[in-house]
């Protein structure tokens, strides 16, 4: 298993009720596996699931990217700046 740190913002944070957490995931888990695990733990995120994007090191990453121990992944709900 690997430990991945997750940061949550805006609607995702409000629905999960927390800003940060650590998820344990099987080795070779992808970004979309992480999102599945997150929604499984916080079912209120379900309706936003298909809109969530993820970022690593302040860059968006694709849903099939494989995660590594200690990665800090930001969950980015639909942006609405401007």
């Amino acid at each position, binding site marked *: 298993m690997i430990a991945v740190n997750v*940061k949550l913002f805006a609607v995702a944070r409000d629905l999960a009720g927390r800003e940060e957490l650590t998820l344990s995931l099987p080795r070779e888990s992808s970004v979309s596996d992480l999102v599945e695990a997150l929604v499984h733990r916080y079912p209120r995120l379900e309706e936003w699931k298909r809109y969530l994007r993820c970022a690593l090191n302040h860059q968006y990453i694709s849903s099939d990217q494989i995660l590594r121990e200690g990665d800090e992944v930001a969950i980015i709900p639909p942006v609405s700046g401007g």
Partner: protein
Amino acid sequence: MVRIVTEPIDIPMILESLGDPSAGGIDLFVGTTRNHSRGKKVLALEYEAYLPMALNQMQEIADGARKKWDIRNVSIVHRIGRVDIGEASVVIGVSATHRNEAFEACRYCIDTLKKVVPIWKKEFFVDGEAWVGPQGGDQ
């Protein structure tokens, strides 16, 4: 110049940052908070940012504009926290030798900002508040 601020955006300062004796024009876009959204009256807005990533993405947009167009300077400033109706939430300015480049690059910056920069808007209505959901094109 790329900044995220919590106070009202200083537009004259931004115009000054864009000044260049070889520039023939500046295009400035000012995004202001509207008193209505999807048919409901809006009282105020609050913006939240994932700060380091937002600044990073704003800088990438500015760099991208410089690569795509022959422009002199570009400034992108976003305000976060509470923004009252009619106040500026974002200001983007581009100076260029010719106005066509200024218009196109400015348009590119605001369009791209709205798609990629991790900043979120919560709308306050008479009867509650809500994060803005997935958006269409011109919001």
